[in-house]
């Protein structure tokens, strides 16, 4: 009897403590949760509602159910913009990863001016996309840009970059990889530095050379950082917009139009906010699916030391 009372009291105290903790959790979460709720969740829910309507943003909304989704999923244009987005990712991801890894490995050595170099590679990351895109547009100018001038000097063909439909996406890939190189470099550098020195030494003692050490020790142990970079870069890749908007405007003749560019056009140029919202949700679903597959797949290849 007495024991039971004690347990009840303890349980009550525990419950009270829980509520108090919960109250504190709410207090500390509020500064980020409220903006998240107001500026992210609310518009997301609103866009789900809008996606079920036909709405030009000035007239009253008209219910169309899943009509927008049906139209988008059967329109060849949707396939085209996703194809362009995938082409962008296919070029961008390997380039930015390989480049970032090379620089991270190089800057992990004891170099003169290492701090300066690390900062220098990071500067593009914090530079505005509009400024970067304008500079690259100038560098890649087909007739009087620096890149084609140099290519011409060594006798290589001079591509039409953003005026040739086949080169528009590669030109965006180049600019994007250059800008994001520093970000990937920082993540991988941190990953490199987290690899315990003892393992490297043990491998050396076992007679592993530089390459062997890199491929059998460093690279596998870098996999958590690699995984993070791949997930983030893929999400960013699917959402590519600014550089396309400034550099090619989706042209020439729509050859570099990407998913988010199409969403922008639908909403703000064609007055089809419903279709734009529906396409946003389709993009969201794709990114969710791709990320889920990666989260599942990482169990097979990501090693945590």
């Amino acid at each position: 009897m007495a024991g039971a009372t004690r347990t009840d009291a303890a349980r009550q105290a525990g419950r009270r403590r829980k509520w108090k903790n919960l109250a504190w959790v709410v207090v500390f979460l509020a500064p980020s949760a409220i903006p998240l709720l107001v500026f992210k969740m609310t518009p997301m829910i609103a866009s789900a509602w809008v996606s079920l309507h036909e709405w030009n943003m000035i007239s009253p909304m008209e219910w169309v159910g899943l009509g927008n989704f049906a139209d988008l999923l059967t329109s060849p244009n949707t396939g085209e913009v996703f194809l362009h987005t995938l082409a962008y990712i296919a070029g961008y991801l390997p380039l930015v990863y390989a480049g970032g890894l090379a620089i991270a490995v190089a800057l992990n050595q004891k170099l003169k001016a290492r701090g300066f170099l690390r900062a220098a590679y990071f500067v593009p990351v914090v530079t505005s996309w509009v400024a970067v895109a304008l500079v690259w547009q100038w560098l890649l100018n087909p007739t009087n840009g620096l890149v084609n001038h140099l290519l011409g000097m060594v006798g290589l063909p001079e591509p039409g970059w953003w005026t040739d439909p086949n080169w528009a996406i590669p030109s965006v890939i180049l600019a994007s990889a250059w800008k994001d190189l520093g970000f990937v470099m920082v993540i991988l550098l941190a990953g490199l530095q987290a690899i315990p020195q003892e393992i490297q030494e043990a491998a050396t003692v076992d007679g592993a050379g530089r390459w062997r050490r890199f491929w059998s020790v460093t690279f596998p142990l870098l996999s958590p950082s690699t995984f993070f970079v791949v997930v983030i870069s893929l999400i960013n890749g699917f959402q590519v917009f600014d550089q396309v908007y400034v550099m090619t405007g989706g042209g020439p003749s729509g050859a570099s139009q990407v998913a988010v560019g199409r969403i922008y056009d639908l909403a703000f140029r064609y007055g089809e906010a419903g279709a734009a919202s529906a396409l946003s949700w389709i993009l969201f679903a794709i990114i969710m699916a791709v990320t889920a597959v990666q989260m599942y797949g990482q169990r097979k290849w990501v090693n945590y030391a």
Partner: protein
Amino acid sequence: MKKPRSRTALSAVAALAVAGLAAGCSQGSATNTGGGDQGDGQVTVRFMNFSSNDGHEADLQAIVSAFEKENSGVKIAVETVPYADYAAKLQTAVAGGTEADVFELEYASFVSYAKAGVLADITGIDTSAYAENLIKAYQSGGKQYALPESFSNVVLFYNKDLFDAAGLAYPAKDWTWADETAAAEALTDKAAGVWGDYQPISYNEFYKTVAQSSGHFLNDAGDATAFNDQAGLAAAKWLTGKSGTTMPTDADGANTPDFDTTLFTSGKLAMWHTGIWMFSTVAEKAPDMNWDIVVEPGNTVKASAMFSNAVGVSAKSQVQDAAKKWLAFYTASQTTIDTRLAKSWELPPVADTSKLDAYLQITPPANRQAVLDSLDAVALAPVVEKQQELQDVIDDELAAVSAGRATAEEALANMQAKVDPLLK
């Protein structure tokens, strides 16, 4: 002791959070009713426009000052947005309920705004001062929803110095495309960076050049395209054939902002198809250059573009009376007419064309009569609901032809295939 303190902390944070939200909200509504009675009898009317951007800001300000002087209780808060951003900005403002009390509209977008109930019905306002065809253009369902603000057209600008140096006769009223091509070829000197011609390869030029070839952009019912014929082919070939031969290409910088203006005012462009709103800019940037204008050459017939802008009052405005006063003053007051004429802005939509005499006296260009002569044969822009999509299709297909990726025939077939569904 501990408990009360934590509670105070909690409620303090909660209060802050709520206050933050409230602040956010009140700011939102402040923007919404920014135009309104401030309680001291002073009323602010918000006015959003694009047409004063890039060169005529001071002219608009002069009109505003004159209005405020006459109407001491009313203040006009001007918001000027570049043309390229205007449509999206107005659309989002309307969607968010924060549109200005009075705002500018292009003729092409007037219908959708009138039908959406965004514009206040201003029927009954005195319309006697406006040209009748322009006042009618801004009616919908028998009601007046906006007032015409200005009209303008496109003419052929030419650099007399370049024609003189080449020993060629100046473009004349009776010129056709063939004359223009011959002169453009003779005047192009790529080595010196001098080009014979510049005409945007765009929708606005296309529907007009179709008309200049005696063709039609749409059929009579307006539910299908009619340009996939000999006239359309002539127009597409005429526009795209210039690129790289007598006109700079996209890679040279064509189609980028101000590229053509700079080319012409730096004396490196012989002929330029552009709007009469460029008069003051050219006169200002190239005061020593000799230039003039002429009615655009036609192919088989003459046809000139005419554009018109209007101003409407938001149906939700809290200051309807003051807004209407400003609307009337801004579109038809003597101050506005004088300013527009003296500064060679777009022309005022006056019923009494003798009021334009002052405009015709100003030089350069000497041949201002061409502005009025161009109105004798006007190619009106087709207005469809999916205007922007239609324009993008035409622009993209023409760009493909000028870059050599498609033939004019293929492009016309593509345009037809893509535009017809937009008209249903």
